[in-house]
């Protein structure tokens, strides 16, 4: 994960980007909890809101893997489909852990 490259891509310096990425992980964990709860209750609107939140923030920082997953979950939930949400939640959790680890490493 090249934070310097990602920072340049959105016009920030690396330090600012790291700060943003830390905030993203922190808020992302909360969003993911909300997504998990909404999915457990089969609450499609709740899934839409949480996935939308993750989608917007990840897109803005260039975390494209999370963006793609969240986008698909949001679209499916809008169509009242929650089939792949469980797997998606797991993948997003892994991605957030990876970002967190990368932030700690450097």
């Amino acid at each position, binding site marked *: 994960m090249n934070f310097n490259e990602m920072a340049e891509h*959105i*016009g*920030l310096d690396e330090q*600012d980007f790291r*700060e*943003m990425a830390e*905030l*993203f992980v*922190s*808020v992302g964990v*909360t969003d993911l909890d909300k997504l998990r709860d909404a999915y457990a209750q089969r609450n499609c609107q709740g899934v839409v*809101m949480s996935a*939308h*939140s993750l*989608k*917007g*923030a990840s*897109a*803005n*920082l*260039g975390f494209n893997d999370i*963006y793609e997953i969240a986008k698909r979950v949001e679209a499916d939930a809008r169509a009242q489909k929650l089939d792949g949400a469980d797997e998606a939640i797991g993948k997003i959790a892994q991605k957030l852990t990876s970002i967190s680890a990368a932030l700690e490493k450097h």
Partner: protein
Amino acid sequence: MTIGPMETRETMPGKGTILIVDDHPVNVKLLEKILKSAGYGTLAAENGPDGRSLAALRLPDLILLDIMMPGESGFESCELLKKDPRTAHIPIVFLSAKTDTESKVTGLKLGAVDYMTKPFDKTEVLARVGRHLETRDSYRGIIELQAAKLKQVHEAQQAILPQPVEFPEALFGVSYTPIIEAGGDFYDVFPAGEGAFGYFAADFSGHDIRASYNTFALKALISQNTGPQIPPAETMQVINRVFSSLMKNGEHLTGVYARLDRRASELTVVNAGHPPMLYLTAGGEIRPLAAEGDILGVFDDVLFEPLRVNVSGGDRFFLFTDGLLEVFGEDPRSREEGIDALMACCVETRDLPIGRAVNEIVSLICPDRSRLQDDILLLGVEV
């Protein structure tokens, strides 16, 4: 992690202050960094109601508004911001992950100046914010220029409206409140022969600046076409001839001209489609003086039936425009009810000097002049 329900973050404004309304702290923080890097000050709120309160309180130069937020959506916030006179002028740019055309069209129809989709691109955000602020500044410049011109018209208009101190022997009091800087109501008081004065009230259709320009033309016509040898009905005929050639598309004016000859104890009234004058005797009896006549500025040929009234010292008469009759708001009145209310106020203030009586009558009829929907004019004369 959330920003908190009412918490806002602020930096010192440089080129302008931008209010960011977004429920996601990452988006808010990123926009703050982008905007601060270009010298803008920022304010932030995490939901629509907090954003609206902050906008009304701090009047930012531009609002970046997310659409999909819990509770009040950005569309609803935009609609409410545009309805609030305190914030209606602030340009709003939607920032959303919603990329469908329908959302963009909805946002623009609600009064937003722009719509940007997430992910944000720094250069695009700054370019668009900069352009909208420039546009806003240009509009502001035009508005300030127009306001200055309107003020000049207002001052010129005030200068042609005679005040009681200029003609103390005319024994009149007047109250005139236009709803814009330059109004469409008009009055004049002028010598009309030895021991005689003319009193004129008029109301031009419309409240735009064109109506106020016409008041200057009317002043000139009255000045040139009144005097002891010119009957009031003839004055009205001349005014009609000139304005029917000037006015278009249903524009018109109504007016009433009262010529009071104190030495002959005679009042002559010509009414051109205007609300009737009110006549109050020294004994406290009041009645409308219903002289018949056509409106001015529409027809080539018009008819007037002058009314002559014998007057006595201590009697009063009142000329006014219909803004004083049709008070709107919580207590709307019909024209008939308005005349009845006005007559009651004239009687009630009978013991006051004419100048004070006029002001008191207007205060009784319109206690809150900030809510007027039409110019109001009341001209009272003591015989």
